[in-house]
Structures are given as structure tokens and as C-alpha cells.
């Protein structure tokens, strides 16, 4: 039985659970690469071009880790979500880069919703490639889809409930592949939680709601994930004490969207840009002083 490798980066943080449910239901074994560690970062740097963003470098590191541990690697390309909702060009490029840099079998998951594709179509292609029949695929898709819908609803409710709390609340704005990556955002979030801050994640809101809310900050933006993030800001603005932006160096959509948000914000914010050499000491200084400011410990 062929085994599928899933790199724990980029799209994994959006659709990982969805894919895993789908493959589980199809009875296909899979392996997910481990949390990003120094070894994976180093592998990525070796393969990547120096102009790529840290997240894409890490992605290539994850693929490199998986290359001889599975028969297929799932490298999706979702280039467009319709209605002026593009993904970052790095997401488009990842598939071609992997195809040219590694001699591995890739699972085809190239979809463009603008051209009539759907997430469903993509998964059907995968199912066929893995020699499953139509009925099995349909069952697996339905199973995964129902679970995914429930997950989105649950995450949204948790976030909304957090907004009602009376403690100090910080909205973390960033892409989930940066926020939850062990080498990028995880330490920052750990630090906040350790200091008693209620953390609200921009990506945990239902994107159906946040995507359209983003229009209040900008009507021209066309990056889907940036729109979701800005929408999360609009949604929670009145109920939070501060915002922390986390992005990887040199993220192009973030440099545009975050900047735009910062200029229009009326509440304190902190902008953190992470590179592979960023030491936590420098971040700690910024986080500590940010919390000092929010907590009012400066003003006795």
C-alpha cells in the first residue's frame, strides 16, 4: 500500500485535518513531517533560493525530510478561491519548485476555483491517483467535509467566546503556518499564555464572516488570507486590548496588508517579523514592553 507524505507547512495548517480525515476514511496510510526544527530549517535553506520567504524555505525543508519516507508527497496548489481571493504566489510556486528540485511522486491537487475547480474535484483526483473507486472517494469526501465544517464552527465559537472575557486579550494576526510553527510563532504565543494573556487567533474565525468584513479596511485587497486576517481585526477590534502581527521575512502580502491595518488602527499593536536567525531575546524585549504597556504596570 502506498504511503502519502504531508509536509507540515503552508496549506497543511489550513487543510491538514481535512486531508487527514479524507485519507483516514480511504484507509490510505500517511505520514506528516514533524514540527519544524533546526534540522528542517537547515535543509530548507540549502534547497531554497535566498529570495524566498522563511515559510517557503521551511516548506522545502519539510519536503526534503519526507522525500525518502513515503511514496507520494501531497503538494497542493490552490491558486484562487474565486471572488477576488488569490493566494500568495509562493503557494503557486511551491508545486513547481518541489517538482523540479526533488525526484519524488507528487499527488496532483492543482485547483483554481476561478476556473470552475472545487476543493472536492481536487480530492477526487487524489482518490483516483490512489486507485480508489468513485464510491469510496465520495464517502471519504463527505466524511471529511462534515468534520471540517464542524471544526470551523467550533473554532469560531471558541474565539467569539474569548472576546467576551474580562482579562487582557490580544489578537494575534498572522498566517497559521507562521503562528503555529515551532520555529516562527509558537514561542511568542507560549510567552503570552505564560504571562496570563488570553490569545485570540486571527485564523480561527470563520473566513466566510471575516472575508467580507475586510472590506471595511480595504476594498482593493485580493489576497484571500490577508483579507481573512483584516476581517478578523474588524470583527474583534472593539473587544481586544492589543494586536500582535507576526509574519515571516520577507512576506509580501503581509507587508502590504499589515501595514494598511496598522495605519488605520486605534489600539496598540506590535509588529514582529521573524527570520531564521531571529533570537528570542530580541523578541522578548518587545513582548515584555508591549505587555507592560497593556497591563498598565508602567503607570502606577
Amino acid at each position, binding site marked *: 500500500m502506498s504511503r502519502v507524505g504531508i509536509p507540515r507547512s503552508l496549506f497543511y495548517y489550513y487543510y491538514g485535518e481535512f486531508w487527514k480525515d479524507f485519507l483516514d476514511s480511504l484507509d490510505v496510510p500517511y505520514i506528516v513531517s514533524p514540527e519544524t*526544527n*533546526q*534540522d*528542517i530549517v537547515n535543509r530548507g535553506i540549502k534547497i531554497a533560493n535566498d529570495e524566498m520567504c522563511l515559510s517557503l524555505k521551511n516548506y522545502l525543508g519539510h519536503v526534503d525530510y519526507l522525500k525518502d519516507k513515503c511514496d507520494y508527497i501531497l503538494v497542493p496548489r490552490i491558486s484562487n478561491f474565486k471572488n477576488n481571493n488569490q493566494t500568495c504566489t509562493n503557494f503557486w510556486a511551491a508545486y513547481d519548485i518541489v517538482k523540479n528540485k526533488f525526484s519524488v511522486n507528487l499527488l496532483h491537487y492543482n485547483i483554481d476555483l476561478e476556473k470552475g475547480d472545487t476543493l472536492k474535484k481536487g480530492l477526487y483526483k487524489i482518490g483516483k491517483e490512489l486507485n480508489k473507486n468513485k464510491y469510496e472517494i465520495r464517502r471519504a469526501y463527505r466524511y471529511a467535509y462534515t468534520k471540517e465544517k464542524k471544526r470551523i464552527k467550533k473554532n469560531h465559537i471558541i474565539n467569539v467566546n474569548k472576546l467576551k472575557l474580562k482579562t487582557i486579550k490580544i489578537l494575534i494576526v498572522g498566517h497559521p503556518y507562521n503562528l503555529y510553527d*515551532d520555529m516562527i510563532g509558537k*514561542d511568542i504565543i507560549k510567552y503570552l499564555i505564560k504571562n496570563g494573556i488570553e490569545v485570540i487567533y486571527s485564523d480561527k474565525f470563520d473566513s466566510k464572516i471575516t472575508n467580507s468584513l475586510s472590506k471595511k479596511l480595504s476594498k482593493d485587497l485580493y489576497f484571500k488570507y490577508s483579507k481573512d486576517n483584516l476581517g478578523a481585526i474588524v470583527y474583534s477590534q472593539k473587544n481586544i486590548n492589543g494586536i500582535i502581527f507576526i509574519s515571516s*521575512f520577507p512576506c509580501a502580502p503581509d507587508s502590504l496588508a499589515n*501595514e494598511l491595518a*496598522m*495605519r488605520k488602527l486605534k489600539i*496598540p*499593536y506590535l*509588529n*514582529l*517579523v521573524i*527570520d531564521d536567525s*531571529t533570537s528570542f*531575546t530580541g523578541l*522578548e*524585549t*518587545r513582548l*515584555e*514592553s*508591549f505587555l*507592560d*504597556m497593556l497591563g*498598565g*504596570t*508602567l*503607570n*502606577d
Partner: protein
Amino acid sequence: MKDCYLGVDIGSISTKGVIIDDNNKIIASSYIWTEGNPVEAVRKLLDILKEELPKGYQIKGIGTTGSARKLIGLMLKACIVKNEITAHAIGTLTFYPNVRTILEIGGQDSKIILIKNGIITNYAMNTLCAAGTGSFLSSQAKRLGIDVEEFGDYALKSTNPVKIAARCTVFAESDLVHKAQVGYPKEDIIAGLCKSVVLNYLNNVGKGKKIVGPIIFQGGVSKNKGVVKYFKEILKEDIIVDENSHLMGAIGIAVLARRNKTGNVYSLEMKNLKFITKAFECHRCPNTCELLKIYRNDELVDSWGSKCGKY
């Protein structure tokens, strides 16, 4: 015996120490170069302060700030260890309760702090790039063969500052070399550099921030008259530079030390203190963290740098 409080600000380039009394009066202060060795710099600093401290005072609190604050905090058994942004804000508010904007340019970093009614409302610090900070100015001074302390005087002589790319240190440096080789006079180049520091600061940390007076400029670079002049010119506001502007972080942390005093009495005598650090790389997992173990009088007091928290 009267009580007094020591604040130490250990920056990347310079180490500052201040002793204040209960009325925030500075009774001893010193400013020396860190020279890449914070522990030795602090030993030297305490020796100087010991000489300066008048008789009849006892130290009731020690605070540390600056990039080596944790290390020196352990060394001196400080009662408070705080980041430099908080320290600078507290220090400035002690002397200027009406301040609205604090501009700060240090050796490796630059920050802006916005204050309203004595409450900090926002701040920013440089992110990845150290362009336009003190270390850039001192390396360019070396290239031009003059002392960084004379920089301001040179800049004031110029009537026609040359244009130097302000965005990036690397571009600024190549611009500077070109301008020098083409034959521009030194004053104009130095004035151009000072101006580029200001522009860089306003475009980087000051970006999108509303800068209102009273404005206070501090950090080592505030001693550079050229930079002050261009801040005034570009912001079209008066810029206050306190005579102790370079000590503000140390003053702030001394004030915080007073607020957090524990009742202990501290000594400035460090001669018999053995304080060493040992670095090693852990190979238990693929992260290969660089670890640092800190020994105070042969006793392991702390270790830093592990991701998993095992050490």
C-alpha cells in the same frame, strides 16, 4: 544612613550606571563602553560609581535594563530586571511628566514611544534592520577617519548636506563612498549621514505614528548635534535633549528599583565575585540549541537558550 538606588543599563555599545536618592536626584553616574564584554564593563562601572558615591549612603535596590539585563541581573542579584522601553519611559516621565513623544536611538536599536496624559499609548521598535542606529554612525565615522563624538560639530558646519540613500545601511555606505570619491567635502557628507539617520528613523520606526510635542530625544545618538538639528528641521517641532539623555534608561530602572525594593542592602564591591558563563551545544534533538550556563561563585544560577526547557 540615607537610602539610594542603583540602575544599570547595559547596552550593546555602552554601559550606563546611575545612583539616585529618594528624591530622584542623581548622586553618582557613569557612562563607559561595553566593548563586547558586559560583565567586565559592569565591574568597571561599579568601581567608578563606588568612588563617586558620597559617604552616608547605602544601596537599597538594584535594577538592570538593556540587552544584557538578564545576565547582569543575575550577577548583581538585582531586585528588578526590565526591558529598556519600559525603563526609558519611566525615566523620562519622572523628569518630564508632560512629554508626548520619546524618540530614542541607541547603539543597535531605535524606538519611539507615544505618551498621552502620562500613559504610554503606543510604541515601536526597529524590527530586523539596525540601519540608522549608533553603530552605523560609528562605523562610518571610522571610515571617514574622525571621532564619532566630533560628528555633530562637523555636521553643523555644512550648509549643503549631500543626499544619501536612507533606506538601507549597505546602500547608504556605498552612496557615501561614491560621494567622497567624487569630491564632496567631509562636512557635507557627514551632514548628509545625520540627515539620512533622521529620515531612516522616521520612515522605519516612526512610520504611521503621529509625532506631537513636547518631543524628547534620547539615547547615545541624541548627543549628536547634527541629528538633533535635522530632527528639528524635518519635524518642524522643538526637540528637547536632556543633559542626562544618554542615562535615561538607567534612571528609569533605578526608579523601578526603588518601587520594588526588598529591604536588602547591596554592596558595590565585586572584586571577590566569580561570575562566569559556559556555552555549549545540545545534541539531544535536531534543534541543536545553543545553551549558556551561568555560574555565580561556582554555583549554577541559570541556563538559557534551550527550546524544550530541559535545562
